[in-house]
């Protein structure tokens, strides 16, 4: 079974570059964009999956980090453009690595207090308190006029990466894809590591974990912050993909969508987020072109996944997860 | 006539087989002890009787009616009261509610259960998950009695009880037996169990390997199957 999962995973990884390369070859740039979109949403979900899949922390507020990451990209680029300092005399930038770092750091910094408070609760209370924090940020963003409020913020062009022309779809896809691979690798090692073991135990039985001498709170907090950082990075990439950020990236719909991607693909499975994002985006795209009732059919497809693909898409393709 | 009959049942947890052919019978008014080492399939047998983990092969009949394919609540309604392994009290119900929720008319009433376990009487308004382990065990027994079953199934019902209480329970079981109650019991205290049972049924690796009255279940056999 393990071998089968590996095969499925390899195929999944190859899928995106294969699509992108084919698209490049036949001159259908849009499919590169679509693949990029899948990769970014997958990365965001990989981040959430650390908290949700491994730690059982169903954060209904990860859009906050996704959106914050996006706004970091948007705000820094805007300031680089109009040459006004962002804050404390720091200039804006259009340099992707700097933006990423800033997004990761900011999301970590914001996730820390949110985690400190939220992790006092558990279960549905955790779901709702994370939602509460995200909603606060959302309403703030809607009504704060400086960066466009509800109308959002347009980037006049995509931020740059040294040595690459990111304005073109393919090089940007490569950048995103490499980051996705890095995210997946991180998740993979994390899951198998001592930290991962402690985190999964904290989900299954926190009292047991504490009784062996590991504080579930500390483990969860680290996981939550890490998770927010990765999702934030994905947010920055998403802003660059769309050359646009708006509060809708911060909305609870977005949080819900990230959760749905994970469940769709297979919770706590390494490639669940990628499979889920691919399926979701493809259906959204394909059905949207076919009929104006596409949401109805999307609903039916999701129901079918719940019933016929236990353990999500990966569960369907690769069988039950390995327990060790 | 036998109240409960199991014929060569086989049961699986998903793909892994736990029972490979268990046969067993409990007659009206009979007390039968189901025995075996840890992990040999006692609990699984009980789960199969109640349809919680339905048997995939073999036949189970209760009161002359084949129940192998029935849903658990239908089987239970035919008159089986279960004291499950691990207590499984309803955590978010009070003691009183636990007792009343599934009660059926008959000789056992709230008053009589409280009489049997005065400790529960003191804690009627307390939520079950805050009870001590032993109190939960008493509650599980009381809850099964309140369904006024034809057949009482006790899966390690004396686990975690203080010696005095345990003696009370054994006394109660003796009284029940005297009153004609049929009982299927899993318990590790052979010294209490053997004098009381009409028949012993021993499982090993998911198979019935011995069945007979206590006198035939010699020290030798006990040692062989239970490691006493």
């Amino acid at each position, binding site marked *: 079974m393990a071998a089968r999962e590996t095969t499925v995973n390899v195929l999944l990884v190859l899928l995106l570059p294969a699509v992108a390369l084919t698209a490049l070859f036949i001159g*259908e*740039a*849009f*499919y590169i*964009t*679509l693949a990029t*979109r899948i990769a970014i949403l997958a990365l965001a979900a990989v981040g959430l999956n650390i908290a949700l899949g491994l730690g059982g922390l169903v954060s209904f507020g990860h859009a906050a980090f996704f959106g914050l990451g996006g706004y970091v990209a948007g705000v820094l680029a805007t300031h680089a453009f109009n040459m006004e300092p962002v804050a404390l005399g720091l200039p804006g930038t259009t340099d992707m690595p700097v933006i990423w770092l800033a997004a990761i750091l900011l999301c970590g910094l914001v996730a820390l207090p949110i985690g400190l408070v939220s992790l006092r609760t558990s279960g549905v209370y955790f779901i709702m308190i994370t939602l509460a924090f995200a909603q606060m940020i959302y*309403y703030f963003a*809607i*009504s704060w*006029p400086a960066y*466009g*409020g*509800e*109308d*959002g913020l*347009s980037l*006049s*062009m995509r931020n740059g990466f040294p040595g690459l022309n990111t304005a073109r*779809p393919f090089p940007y896809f490569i950048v995103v894809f490499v980051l996705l691979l890095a995210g997946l690798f991180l998740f993979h090692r994390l899951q198998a590591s001592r930290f991962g073991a402690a985190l999964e135990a904290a989900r299954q039985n926190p009292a047991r974990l504490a009784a062996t001498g590991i504080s579930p709170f500390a483990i969860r907090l680290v996981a939550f912050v890490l998770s927010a950082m990765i999702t934030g990075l994905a947010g920055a990439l*998403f802003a660059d993909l*769309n*050359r*646009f950020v*708006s509060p*809708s*990236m911060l909305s609870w*719909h977005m949080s819900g969508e990230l959760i749905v991607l994970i469940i769709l693909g297979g919770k706590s499975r390494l490639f669940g987020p990628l499979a889920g994002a691919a399926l979701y985006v493809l259906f*959204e*795209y394909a059905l*949207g*072109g076919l009929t*104006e*009732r*596409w*949401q109805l059919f999307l609903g039916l497809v999701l129901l079918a996944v719940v019933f016929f693909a236990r353990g999500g898409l990966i569960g369907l393709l690769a069988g039950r997860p390995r327990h060790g | 006539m036998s109240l409960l009959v199991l014929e060569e049942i086989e049961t699986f947890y998903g793909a892994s087989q736990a029972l490979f052919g268990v046969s067993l019978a409990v007659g009206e008014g009979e007390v039968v002890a189901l025995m075996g080492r840890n992990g040999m399939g006692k609990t699984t047998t009980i789960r199969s009787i109640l349809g919680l983990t339905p048997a995939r092969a073999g036949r189970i009949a209760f009161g002359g009616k084949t129940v192998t394919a029935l849903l658990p609540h239908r089987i239970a309604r035919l008159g089986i009261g279960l004291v499950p392994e691990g207590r499984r009290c309803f955590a978010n119900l009070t003691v009183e509610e636990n007792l009343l929720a599934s009660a059926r008319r008959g000789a056992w009433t709230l008053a009589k259960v409280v009489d049997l376990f005065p400790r529960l009487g003191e804690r009627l308004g307390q939520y079950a998950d805050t009870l001590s382990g032993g109190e939960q065990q008493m509650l599980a027994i009381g809850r099964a009695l309140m369904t006024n079953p034809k057949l009482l199934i006790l899966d390690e019902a004396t686990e975690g009880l203080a010696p005095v209480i345990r003696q009370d329970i054994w006394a109660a079981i003796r009284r029940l037996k005297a009153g004609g109650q049929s009982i299927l019991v899993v318990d590790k205290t052979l010294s209490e169990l053997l004098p009381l049972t009409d028949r012993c049924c021993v499982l090993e690796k998911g198979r019935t390997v011995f069945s007979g009255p206590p006198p035939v279940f010699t020290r030798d056999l006990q040692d062989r199957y239970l490691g006493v």
Partner: protein
Amino acid sequence: EPVKIGVITTLSGGGAGLGVDMRDAFQLAIKQSGNSEIELVVEDDAQKPELAVQIAEKMIQSDKVDLMTGIIWSNLAMAVVPNAVAQDVIYLSPNAGPSALAGANCHPNYFNVAYQNDNFHEAMGEYDNKDYKKTFILAPNYPAGKDALTGFKRYYKGELAGEVYTQVGQTDYAAEIAEIRASGADSVYFFLPGGMGIAFMKQYAQSGVAIPVTGPGFSFSQDVLPAIGDAALGVKNSGTWAKDLDNPANKAFVEAFQKEYNRLPSIYAAQSWDTANLILSAIGKASVKDKDAFRAALKEADFASVRGKFKFNTNNHPIQDIYVTEVVKEGDVLTNKIIATAFTDHGDAYADKCSM
């Protein structure tokens, strides 16, 4: 040579009514023109900015559309338009005119065939000067809401009894209505789009407060009037169009729309109809492949607008008359009737910031 037009609009979810009207009118106009060289690509944005962006990319990169149109909401327009026009696609707005795109960020590829967002509010502010001295204004707390009240105040000269910003998506207005009652206002002006406006009007009528209400046409247009019901009767509101506007183009439009779809057209349908006819007129004059020529042809605005007079300002936004209409009942159907003209040949406040 066929012309490909990408229509991104809202066809699902709560805001779908507007998008459906928009699309229906557009398709009808193209059909009636008999021009078989025009190919439409219609997609649903589900009122999500990110999805709209994705569809726009697809239309530009994959479908290779020549023109784009269809977006109903300002925030979606802000997501799509700057990028689309930067890729040398011409975008025509059939609704929504955020101020950001009218001023410094105006673009030769961006044509607004509807209005600049402030227009309706400016008109009502101007008109309210006539009857009222102390008005109470409210709008949702987001950019369009603030723009609305700014627009109103730009022309309104009386005193303000109160200025309240409500929550986006709010459904209960008891608190605001109580404040209005206590404010001593002689009138109320509100901008609450979609369901918010319906809820406000119903609750306002139920509250028994007798202070007259005025609003922008969106809150009393044909798509929402049936839902508000008689509570809307007699309310004055501003608009660039009403179905009784007396010109041949409008008569033909209303009749054709009613015949085809068996319902009255809304202002979104009217604006969309104009957008389609503007495009048709330009196609007759120039090839879409020749962008400069085509832009010039569009700018001439040589088409029969259902709004009567129509021409483009320097920033490619309309210069048009803005009317005040009143909700009336025709038979048992609620609709709007023009009672006054608030502005003639009105442009917008941002045109001089546009360096085009």
